[in-house]
């Protein structure tokens, strides 16, 4: 039995690899999407418009402002009178950020005391905000080094106090790339499995498989393992990619990560196989897979929080594997979520996986007629 399954698994890998369609589907979307994100996230941003509220009105504060005026990144530096103006300008998207320099700025510098500059960023434009933030930090550091070299002997003393309006803490990018990994893993697993049986049906090779000594169970195992391995590998690569290039922290347990990943993927593979067993052609199977995928993502809490959904949909999310897995992914990456919380989400996933795989094998056997 093991030998037969092995032969089938090998064949599956070969067919996936030799079919240009599946090959592209595995490699292209993750590569493209992650590259686009990487590009958008590291892209240098120029021509930033900013406002400054200079309450200090001293030589020192003007020096600092002129550093901004002369930097290559900032285009218009508008001087404003009060915070109200800042708010209006950000709201109207006339500026992407504002500095607010305190009245005691010069005094504190002279007395060699720590001082604060408030940076206000437009949190709606997360990317620009986070990059501009970096620029500001480097300009301020440079200013300090040039004008007060003695201060550098201790730690830098001008503290930036950053407030992201509309999106405090700026975890949005991290949150997005992690959700993106989940969605891409889902797509890969779903597409590979939904194509696999339907393709054989379309080509007429399915009859040949059934007539062979392979049992229905063996065929299902053979059809599940290759997509599982491929999506596991792809997920690992994508996770490494975001950890290295987006500096997304990975705070949780790797073991739990893989246990949850395998469980999640199995539940998705079950859905894919289910569609593949019903459909006669690959086209139908792909369409079926997408009619599952879109609502599953919409109802996962990625777009809008589950708590905000109407009651009916909240109940519906209880059978949605994406919902639970998103929580696990965010927890493991960003929050160092303790094992017990992971299990709270993992156990429903196990049930969903059992449910979807049994539905698939039931449908598979039924459709042999």
């Amino acid at each position: 039995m093991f030998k037969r399954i092995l032969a089938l698994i090998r064949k599956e890998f070969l067919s996936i690899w030799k079919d240009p369609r599946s090959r592209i589907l595995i490699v292209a979307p993750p590569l493209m999407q992650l590259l686009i994100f990487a590009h958008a996230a590291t892209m240098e941003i120029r021509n930033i418009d900013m406002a400054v509220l200079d309450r200090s009105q001293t030589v020192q504060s003007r020096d600092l402002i002129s550093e901004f005026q002369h930097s290559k990144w900032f285009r218009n530096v508008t001087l404003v009178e009060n915070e109200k103006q800042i708010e209006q300008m950000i709201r109207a998207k006339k500026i992407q950020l504002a500095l607010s320099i305190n009245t005691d700025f010069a005094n504190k510098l002279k007395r060699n005391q720590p001082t604060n500059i408030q940076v206000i960023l437009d949190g709606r434009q997360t990317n620009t905000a986070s990059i501009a933030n970096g620029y500001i930090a480097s300009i301020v550091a440079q200013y300090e080094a040039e004008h007060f070299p003695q201060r550098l002997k201790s730690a830098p003393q001008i503290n930036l106090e950053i407030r992201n309006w509309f999106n405090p803490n700026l975890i949005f990018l991290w949150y997005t790339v992690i959700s993106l990994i989940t969605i891409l893993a889902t797509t890969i697993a779903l597409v590979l499995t939904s194509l696999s049986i339907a393709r054989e049906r379309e080509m007429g090779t399915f009859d040949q498989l059934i007539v062979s000594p392979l049992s229905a169970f063996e065929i299902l195992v053979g059809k599940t393992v290759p997509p599982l391995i491929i999506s596991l590998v792809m997920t690992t690569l994508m996770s490494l990619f975001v950890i290295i290039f987006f500096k997304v922290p990975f705070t949780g347990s790797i073991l739990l990560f893989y246990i949850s990943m395998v469980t999640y993927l199995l539940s998705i593979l079950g859905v894919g196989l289910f569609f593949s067993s019903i459909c006669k052609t690959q086209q139908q199977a792909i369409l079926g897979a997408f009619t599952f995928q879109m609502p599953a993502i919409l109802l996962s809490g990625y777009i809008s929080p589950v708590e905000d959904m109407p009651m009916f949909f909240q109940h519906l999310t209880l059978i949605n594997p994406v919902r639970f897995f998103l929580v696990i992914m965010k927890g493991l990456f960003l929050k160092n979520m303790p094992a017990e919380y992971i299990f709270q989400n993992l156990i429903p996933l196990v049930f969903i996986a059992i449910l979807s795989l049994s539905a698939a094998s039931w449908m598979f056997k039924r459709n042999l007629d």
Partner: protein
Amino acid sequence: MISSIEIKNLTKKFTDNEPAIDNLTLDIEKGRITGLIGPDGAGKTTLLRLITGLLLPNEGEISTLGLNPTINQKLINAKIGYMPQKFGLYEDLSVIENLNLYAELKEIPQNEKEKIFNKVLTMTDLIRFKKRLAGALSGGMKQKLGLACTLLGTPKLLLLDEPSVGVDPISRRELIKMVRELATEGMTILWSTAYLDEAHSFDSCIVLNEGKIIYNGLPHDLSETGKGFEQKVIELMGGFNPQPSELAEKFELKEHNVEYVIEALDLTKKYGDFYAVKNNTFHIKKGEIFGLLGPNGAGKSTSFKMMCGLSTPSAGTAKIMEQDILKNPSKARSYLGYMAQKFSLYGDLSVMQNLRFFAGVYGLNIFKRKDKIDQIVEIFHFKKYLNHDAKELPLGYKQRLSLACAVMHNPSVLFLDEPTSGVDPVTRREFWHHIKGLAQKGVTVMVTTHFMDEAEFCDRISLFYQGEAIATGSPTELKNMISPTATMEDAFVGLIERYNEKGVLR
């Protein structure tokens, strides 16, 4: 003599290898049916496509209806009808919708449409099925519809690329009759075919081999009878010298003492009120070759599928080596080698990968696997194709590969569903040579075919019609039911006609 097609020193190469068409010179006479025959890969399809202008020649000249297809492809298109091997019928559209679509493609004026449709539909006898989806038509009717679509522009020249592959003898007779009527109206017809009896009835025939013409003349000049003609053509193609079948020699049959190896017991398949197969019962002895004959849609493939457990019977059951296919499907299937009607190996995998896969699925162990594969490569001459993707193989080799994969695990029972459909005469002989060899060794074979000469090779035949076996017996017995001098085809057509008249046979 007026020629519709004149070809001078035509050469066509696809790669740097051997040319597909090699310095060919040919005239095709107007108003006649010319048969184009030859082994797979001889260049028949290439020649037809060159004549239409779909392919451009490397060297030489073609004149199609006085026009040069390289320059005037558009003009030629309007004057000819070309029916490729796989005619592009839209299976989700009805018969009339398909016709409408092709009429629009051929820019037939709206007011003439109805007249033309009536003509082609009457001629093809499809008028009753106007509203039926093309996908729901039988193989023979699909081909007729394809022909009807091809005839829409009232072409002066008709090019048919193996229109009768997979079509039963009755539908084939009708198809030929239709085309013959067209020829009397002055249409020129070039008809590529693998059926030599068909070619024998044409006005003229061309035998192509490796891109060269090896015979061009009247079929009756070669031989007066269809059988003699086939023999002569096979000799022209290099002949077939039967050596003892190596496949059969190397075959390791598991000894068994089962008397009836294959049994069908009241096998029935019902779709709604319609019986696809009705109360079918037969018992096949060890080493017998049992043929299922019958028109398209008679229920042969459905029976086949039920017997190997691909489809659940509505009633009754089948037994293979005394194992009930419903109760012990895995056990029953383990005795089985199955070759499906449609090529059903992995087209994206190479020949070698396919062989390895099936060896693995059949559980051959590593050492045995290598020996067995080497053996098969040797027997079927796969060496030069080992690393080719299966989908790129010539048809004859595809069928060989299917047979090879079906017998790899030394099954006691072999189910072959139209194994030689569309295959050239020499390969067909080779196939039957293997089949007979295996049967002598003790393998029990159940086979369907549309070739009447192949039916003669069977020990017993069951003639299927409308889901029922209307006659069963040895080929001689069946022929004697009609007359002592009847051919197999006469018996086939006669028995079905008799059934239609009386509702029962005896």
